[in-house]
């Protein structure tokens, strides 16, 4: 019962937190692009927040390296559950170019649970909106 209320609450106006894990800025600027006037997802209540403790959705970008992996885990622990995690960009999904790198740890999904994978280098803002919608669809 309580779980359903949480789920119902999560469906409306998702607040997103952007967690960069050694990204190249590419996906990061496209996330920001998604939030500025051309695409303006704030119309649907999607808002970028400054603290993981306020977030419903974690947008993870970048190759997770040895330095950021424990920090990413800690960020995830701070997000109130239930929450959604979207891995944005090929790096976050699979490691992309950096699979063989000595500083690379693993894909994001081996560190924190991922709900939606969004490959692309970088994915277009339209694709990111689609990913958020797919994530909402998963709640049911």
């Amino acid at each position, binding site marked *: 019962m309580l779980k359903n209320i949480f789920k119902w609450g999560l469906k409306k106006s998702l607040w997103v937190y952007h967690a960069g894990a050694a990204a190249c800025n590419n*996906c990061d600027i496209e996330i920001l692009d998604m939030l500025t006037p051309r695409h303006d997802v704030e119309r649907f209540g999607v808002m970028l927040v400054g603290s993981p403790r306020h977030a419903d959705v974690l947008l993870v970008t970048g190759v997770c390296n040895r330095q950021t992996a424990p920090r990413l885990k800690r960020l995830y622990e701070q997000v109130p559950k239930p929450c959604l995690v979207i891995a944005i960009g090929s790096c976050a999904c699979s490691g992309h170019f950096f699979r063989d790198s000595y500083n690379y740890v693993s894909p994001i999904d081996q560190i924190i649970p991922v709900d939606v994978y969004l490959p692309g280098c970088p994915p277009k803002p339209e694709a990111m909106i689609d990913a958020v919608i797919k994530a909402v669809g998963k709640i049911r």
Partner: protein
Amino acid sequence: MSQSIEIKTELENKFDWLKDQVRITRENRLWLDVPADKFFVIFDYLISLAGFKELCTITGTDEGDNYGLMYHLARTDGKVLNLKTLVPKEGGSMKSIISYFPGGTIYEREINDLLGVKFEGLPPGRRYPLPDNWPEGEHPLRKGWQPDKLSKVEGIKEAGEERLNMPIGIRSEISQPTDFSLIRRRDDVQISIGPQHPALKEPESFNVTLQGEKISGIEIKLGYNHRGIEKACEQRSYIQDVYLVERICGICSHTHSTCFVQAVEEIAGLQLPKRAAYIRTLVGELERVHSHLLWLGVAGHEVGFDTLLMYTWRDREIVMDILAMLTGNRVNYGINQVGGVRRDVTAEQAADILKAVDQLEEQTKYYIEVATEEQTLIQRLSGVGKLSKEDVLKLGTVGPTGRASGVERDVRRTDPYAAYGELDFKVITSDQCDVYGRAVVRLLELMESYSMIRQVLKKLPDGPISVRAPRRIPAGEAISRYEAPRGEDVHYVKSNGTENPERVKVRAPTLANLQSVTKMLEDRYLADLPIVIAAIDPCFSCTDRLIKVEDKGLMTWEEIRQYGIEWYKKQGVDFARMTGKIGRSKE
């Protein structure tokens, strides 16, 4: 060429043992190998008398029994002298150049970490760029080094856990000074900013020490973004590397790929077709427009002027559409290849670009009007983040940050590449020496970029857009410079005659500029920190946690919670009773 020969003869006259040692590979590029014992004689002479006052970077190479150390020294007229020396692997060490270039220690630290070269006189400090839990004695850039060696040593998970259990905000390593730290007293309040930022951009960490609201110390911690690209470049072919270096940074992706490709072309002796040079310039300038508009918005956001953020990002979409039309992708254009470019510009595209540039120019004029007339903006930015001309020269600050302090340093002018030698443009400088100056420089540079885009499209010569490049690049080395939106970008490429490069070294402009941030923040207020850091254009905005350190030493979360409860009890607030009242006593 003549000036380079002059430098050569001057050196030979001064030191007769240098006869025929100086190599000149092309205009503006000199190479010199010296033995380690005579290194500082030449180094001293070059800096104090020959005018090579700029240190681009230091490259470390692994050469059999020795380590090669190459110091790339530049002069304001665009000449680059690459001074190389060898240090034996067994028991060898090099003297630190800290007395010549205080900012140069970060490059030495990098070589120390990645190759294991010891530097005498390098002050102890935090490692860079490898992670904190990296095992000692493992140096990834050494030739025979294999990543699978790491599986033997402690894994990431365990090391990560250990760090997770550390008290938040109070880290034991805080007491270690780094290259970026100011002197600190024990009773100050420390705020840790980063590594995660609420709004955007890379994870970096700032430990700020405060006295009241004034910043008395700042420690910048880098290395969160280290992905091992230099090693990855060595493992891939030149064709693959073009796309790999593009992903060093998403905002200046064209910068890095052009810079790399130029170096490879120079080694291979390829003659770049004129049309390709013009198209590279065109994309480069469009990239500068998108980057500067992005910066303007972020700067607006940092000072609480979000309307500016929304306006500039709306207009930025115009240039993003142009880039997508021209290259096929919004960012990471993938337009460069060794020997030319991959896509041509058609007449219709040119017309579209001109139309877009007109539109952008009109908008930029409006922003310039806002910047010069809006009192709130002027007063917020004036006098913040002061950096004098002398400091710029001493710390090697590059790009708009340096130009806003009156230093006319622009690689496009001093060491022209692509088609910049044939274009007419002004190098924008300002004597403001503060964040306001940096904003004005960037805005006026936008206008120059529009004019350059128009010139490129007008002069665009006919002909092929690429020449055939060999898969194997002959042995050789080259250094290439590029004026990125943020400043001078330097790539050093060394080839060994195979399909893969022997060594690729990248010095991005932000690394040079970060060293000036501590100077800018000296005795400033905490509220200025975001905009000052953003003004060099790595753009940070941040909120994080604050924990007060009293004479109790380190505290865990539980202790801090207890301490808080006790403190409130003394004030007459009892949480135990309160939680009972609102029905959460089960906890």
